[in-house]
């Protein structure tokens, strides 16, 4: 029990530090300098109604490229770690109980709707709360539902890899076009900025975010497929 005591002491110390932070915290009354710049310049410069999207896709677009790369690496490493545990094609398969009427019918009904919602979320990423990462996660939840209904379902890794690499290449390609046609890497003004609040506005942001959505959806789906293809233990 000495270990438990040590843990509690450590957490008490950390809690003391946190309590000090909360006690010393005073909320700002106005936006700080960076946030004020984004609030005042997003509408004219970027044309995106959702300022968070403008930051993620354009102001800090390079970071998002890095983030997508981290996600790609994760999906690749999960596949690599699990590749040896993959079930052999001719290995005997334990009989699985049927997934049940509710789940089967519910999946048939909901999967197209979930895919539609995912596409809606990432196409409207520059107007509404949402965007490529959220939409991609929603797309992958449709794949998760398919896998829940039929755990033996095999999703084509070739198709997932094709979607993912095409989307990634187009994302980088649009970024390079920004260097050639506009102010710099991932500049969204290679297309007209349009009227604030329209679907076709904010330059290249809807296109970039749609491809990010496809890429994230493909990466999450490949993680789910890899985890589900492991041997039953």
């Amino acid at each position: 029990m000495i270990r438990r005591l040590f843990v509690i002491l450590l957490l008490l110390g950390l809690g003391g530090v946190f309590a000090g932070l909360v006690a010393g915290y005073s909320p700002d009354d106005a936006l700080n300098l960076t946030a004020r710049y984004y609030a005042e310049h997003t509408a004219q410069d970027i044309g995106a109604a959702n300022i968070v999207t403008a930051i993620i896709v354009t102001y800090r677009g390079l970071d998002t490229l890095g983030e997508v790369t981290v996600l790609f690496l994760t999906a690749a490493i999960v596949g690599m770690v699990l590749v040896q545990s993959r079930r052999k094609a001719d290995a005997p398969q334990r009989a699985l109980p049927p997934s049940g009427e509710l789940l089967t019918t519910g999946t048939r009904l909901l999967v197209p709707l979930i895919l539609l919602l995912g596409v809606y979320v990432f196409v409207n990423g520059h107007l509404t709360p949402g965007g490529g990462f959220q939409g991609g996660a929603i797309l992958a939840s449709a794949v998760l539902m398919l896998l829940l209904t039929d755990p033996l379902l095999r999703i084509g890794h070739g198709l997932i890899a094709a979607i993912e690499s095409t989307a990634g290449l187009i994302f980088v390609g649009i970024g390079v076009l920004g260097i050639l046609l506009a102010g710099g890497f991932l500049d969204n003004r290679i297309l007209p900025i349009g009227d604030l609040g329209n679907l076709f506005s904010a330059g290249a942001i809807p296109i970039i975010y749609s491809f990010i959505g496809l890429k994230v959806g493909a990466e999450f789906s490949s993680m789910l497929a890899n985890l589900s293809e492991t041997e039953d233990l």
Partner: protein
Amino acid sequence: MAYIALTTGFVLILIGLYGALTNRNILRMIVAFTVANTGVNLVMVAVGYLHGRTAPILNEAVPVEQAAARIIDPLPQALVLTAIVIGVGVTALMLAYAYRLYETKRTLDISKYTELKW
């Protein structure tokens, strides 16, 4: 309001660390880490909150001219969006490694893995 979210976030971090340090089961440790991760995200969003303001989306409620006076700080939200995605990646990696560990020893009890213990 910001204080409630801030305190909840810190409490979630502490709960998550307690769970990760006291549980012996690897899956429970992974769940505890995601709880702590949620706490960190909550703290970051709470720091960007300004009282009486609205979400950083320009629409009828937030005219462009008054944006700086009406919206909360968009920067922590963008950071947390990134953090959530990376958190998902970390969780997936931990689960994959947990699976491989289970394959080697057929147990998820971390005290049975003694190779690096001193």
